[in-house]
């Protein structure tokens, strides 16, 4: 199956990285989460409710909506702050990419472990700039807010094309499609990875390691 891949690019200041990533990742996850499934006896299920929460950004003139699940927020924040640290430690001109990948697990026979087959990948390319004056920062605040707004509209457009989505699973299969580890919402199975590109544009060991791990995992 072909995996859908979308790329978003943003240029931000160092202190805006976290909020920008959170905004975009949460927006995507909002659309890709449902309430918790409660399977009933006859093979039917009922779905819980997803609540939403408005978040205002401090460093960007922007507000976004996210799923009101603290656990999910924690997970995302952790990933984003790792990304941010990696970016600032890389010491390069600050280009990196964070990817949110939705996948399905396919059980394989022993001795092979489960396969993860992605069906949608969102890559957010980040370019960090350093600004000198307060005025430039103010402009940047507004501009980044506008850009993020455009990205949200892009995301919504893509999602509303209603292309492939995994089928609703039966009770036994639900873990292959959804992430059931959270208490209050159930997003599709996802993973977040990132890579930092140094100034030469070549990717650093993180990606290589990941590639090797994936091939070995098969």
């Amino acid at each position: 199956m072909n995996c859908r891949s979308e790329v978003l690019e943003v240029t931000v200041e160092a202190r805006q990285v976290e909020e920008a990533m959170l905004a975009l990742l949460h927006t995507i996850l909002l659309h890709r989460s449902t309430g918790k499934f409660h399977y009933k006896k006859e093979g039917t299920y009922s779905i819980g409710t997803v609540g939403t929460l408005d978040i205002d950004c401090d460093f960007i003139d922007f507000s976004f909506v996210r799923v009101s699940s603290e656990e999910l927020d924690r997970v995302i924040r952790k990933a984003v702050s790792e990304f941010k640290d990696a970016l600032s430690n890389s010491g390069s001109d600050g280009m990196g990419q964070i990817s949110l990948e939705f996948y399905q697990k396919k059980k394989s026979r022993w001795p092979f472990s489960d396969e993860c087959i992605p069906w949608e990948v969102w890559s957010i390319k980040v370019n960090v700039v350093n600004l000198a004056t307060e005025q430039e920062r103010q402009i940047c605040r507004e501009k980044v807010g506008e850009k993020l707004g455009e990205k949200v509209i892009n995301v919504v457009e893509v999602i509303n094309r209603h292309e492939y989505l995994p089928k609703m699973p039966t009770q036994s299969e639900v873990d292959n499609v959804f992430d059931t580890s959270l208490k209050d919402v159930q997003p599709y199975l996802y993973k977040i990875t990132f890579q930092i590109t140094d100034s030469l544009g070549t990717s650093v060991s993180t990606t290589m390691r990941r590639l090797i791990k994936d091939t070995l995992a098969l």
Partner: protein
Amino acid sequence: MHTVQVIVQARLGEKICTRSSSSPTGSDWFNLAIKDIPEVTHEAKKALAGQLPGIGRSMCVEISLKTSEGDSMELETWCLEMNEKCDKDIKVSYTVYNRLSVLLKSLLAITRVTPAYKLSRKQGHDYVILYRIYFGEVQLSGLGEGFQTVRVGVVGTPVGTVTLSCAYRTNLAFMSNRQFERSAPIMGIIVDHFVDPPCISQRPATMGQPCNYRAPDEDDGGPYAGVQDSQEVCTTSFSTSPPSQLYTSRLAYQPPALAGAAELCHPAANPNQMHAGKEGGVVLVPAQPAHGADAHLTAEHAPNTPGSSGDDDGLSQSGEGRRDEGRRSASPSDPIESLNAFTRKIGAFVNKPNTQITAASLDLPFAAFAPRGLDSEENDPMVQPPDSPPCPSPLQASLHSQGSESSGPQDDFVMVDFRPAFSKDDLLPMDLGTFYREFQNPPQLASLSLHQLQSMADDLDSLPEKLAVYEKNIDEFDAFVDMLQ
């Protein structure tokens, strides 16, 4: 129904927070926790009147901004349309259901992106955001030119395709609505009930009067005629109204600059907007009374003179604070000059520092004719009409002709931007310029007024006595402090 709820809630000005619950309550459609505001549901049902959206019958929610003076401006129109293209492939209802919930989620996301969201978060006593639900043809004329459209989503169903889109205005210069009191109120106007409306909300029956909006071509006779008509209308109505009314509506002013100046201007790529935003830094809440029916005309809006005959008085009184009505009407659409124009109020009598524009002393946009000097307004033939004609029309005609010769790249009466010395940036709202303008006339310090001086002297005198008393009670104080620890 839910789309309406989402849209309206997004514009309430509050942050929305709902909780996820793992167990379904059964009454949450689309599995999204959207609290229903009963009033909104009621309004929506009323508008729908039992029908469902169909071809040519879309359900629209219009969001508009209304200032405390009664001027209003449409900000966005959200439309839920349905057309006949049935998607026969979709047979399974839960797919449709899921897609519809994705649509609602997208709506949630998009409502935070449009410029109106920021405006609605800042609403308060200066302006409120209103919504109106109507059913029928989409009317986009009220959004000004250059409005943008965002498609939130499309869902195909076996009975047709549902499309949800939003058209939002990008030109945020505020245009006054002259024909305000002349039109019948549209049914279904609901004031956002979280904020008290300062006055009855009314809207012209026809949206988007040409004279209220920017006419790209100032020499166009069309809008002109409209303008003249409205002026005549206005003048006749004014002649009977008390002197404190008046004048305003022709004013266009910037919606409460407040903190929102920057945001108001930035969504539009229009360079005019930038200016508007900047100028707005000077203009605080305009305190001009709306004319006609909606009024909270307050007597404090000093003797504004009635439009027709009072023009001369108005003109002479304010001196440089005079607001040029004719000019306004001449180019009602120019955002900059509109801003400028109305800051000149007859502020001579005004002593409310914040909410009213203290007239002449305020640095006015005309100061932007910087090359000619800051106080050039008095000599500026464009500012002051050569004579004070009783009827605005000839005034407007003459001014208009002057206007077309004015400097400035845009439409008539555009101010050249004020460039303070040492400021280097010519693209952006110049901090220095804005600052300079804003603080050219600060209100007088309270402590400097005579009355205050005296009381201060009294206070100072009584200090030694107070100190003596405190020293006597020192033990009590110590005990108190110990108690706190």
